[in-house]
């Protein structure tokens, strides 16, 4: 059995990369990938504890999370395609019509 801190630290690092990527990247697709990274960091934590406690709940939860994340991406990509058609850019910096 490995110490619990290893997978948790990995999840923490993944989550931080996701947060930083979300905040500094301009390309909407990359921002989406950062969000996926954050979701998967949470998945890793669930799996880690499910394995550690020998408790199946954590594994079931991960399947739910993967499903909802997929639904979210489906909506997001459709939106990005639709914006790209009228704007020819998917940079989040170009989304600046709303201000005040």
């Amino acid at each position, binding site marked *: 059995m490995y110490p619990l801190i290893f997978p948790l630290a990995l999840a923490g690092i993944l989550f931080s990369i996701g947060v930083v990527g979300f905040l500094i990247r301009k390309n909407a697709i990359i921002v989406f990938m950062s969000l996926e990274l*954050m979701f998967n960091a949470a998945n890793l934590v669930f799996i880690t504890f499910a394995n550690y406690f020998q408790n199946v*709940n954590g594994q079931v939860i991960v399947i739910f999370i993967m499903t*909802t994340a997929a639904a979210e991406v489906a909506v997001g990509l459709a939106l990005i395609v639709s914006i790209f058609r009228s704007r020819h850019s998917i940079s*989040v910096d170009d989304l600046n019509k709303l201000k005040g």
Partner: protein
Amino acid sequence: MTIIDLFSILPVLVLVVWALFLLLADLWASRKLPGLTPILAVVGLVCSLVVSIVQVGKPQSSFGGMIHVDGFSVFLNILFAITGIAAVALAYESFKNLKIQRGEYYVLLLFSLSGMMLMGAAGDLIVIFLALELLSIPLYIMAGMDFNRLESKEASLKYLLLGTFASAIVLFGTAFIYGAAQTTNLYEIALAVSLAEINWTLFIIGAALLVVGFGFKVAAVPFHTWTPDVYHGAPSSVTAFMAVGAKAAGFAALIRVFSLDFTILSENLTAVFWALAVLTMIVGNFTALAQKNLKRMLAYSSIAHAGYILMAFVAFGNEAVRVDSIASALFYLAAYAATSIGAWAVLIAVEREDASRNEIEHLAGLGKAAPLLAAAMTVFMLSFTGIPVTLGFWGKFYLFRTAIQGGNIILAVIGLLTSLVSAYYYLRVVVKMYFQEGDVKVNQKGWSLVVAVVAALIVLGLAFIPELLYKFAASSLIIG
């Protein structure tokens, strides 16, 4: 799964099944009878409302503790169902003006509402996460419904990115709570906390992440930056629904999770919520002062109102005022819902086909052009400010009372002072309507007028029997 289990989620079930049926019905109706889908959606909502009312006073837990039907969830179900009916009426008119009348919208609305209702009844952190997604994903699409306008799409993408970010944070927090307590069930976590069988480090990390995640959802400062853009860009009828429904659902989750599981951390969390409430009230109200666009002003005012609700919640750790704290938050949510929907209805009546004419300027002359609408708008502005003989006054009264009973007198004073500031920008709207000439053109026969008048009557009528509503709200959460 037994019949009793199914009965407990019947309001949600009715909406989901009805939404699926509506998807099929719309295929046929969109060609033959374009007005049928919204009417059918209202029928579904009324069924759900009736089922919710039947559940009054029958607290129960089902699905192995994943669903808790209690006074709290029933109160919110009724609030959501009525909000939904108003939202359908507003969408029908607004989308006809914008020439984007589409049946899918009502289906998405029902799905989103089912998520909100599930949120009110959730007894497990995973159900809360799933409900959050179920209510958010349709909302992202609804915000982008006016897809010929880039603003609408921009609002939709911004909402989606920030909303998903918040969901991811909530989820990461949930994972740590699971690690701390070996379960995601709210009541089992509370049990583990009382037996001190939890890992404190993980538990505190989880609680902190949940504060941030829910802070995004209810648009508390400093997590509010998405709100003005999204509220401004989305079609007005969608914003009306979003400003009420999504906010109430966010508070539902916040209240249930924190008052059940995190009371033990209340000493630390009180300071956090105190700071959030103060910041939200101050930033929301002062930024609203500078707005020229009515939609943006209402967006900032909705941020400010989230601050007031948080104020009640600061004292959640104090056993003696917990029921009052939850009841006054629910009461304020109801008052805010009626007032806010009404104000958006007036905005929709004034707005033109290309989603323009929504500056505060454009309300000039409304007092003469449409006396009924102007009178209703005056009621809403007074209620937002918290002036007596409106529901908003009683909402603020109960909030301040709870804050003072909980020992947060300074907080109540800050709340009072920021309310005074807010009077400036709310009353400015009234002055514009009555004392300036303008060429406002109003749709006097639409549903928005009906919604505005009914909402104004509710705001005025319930203000005479606030105790009744408050008692209903206080028949609240099952604790322990």
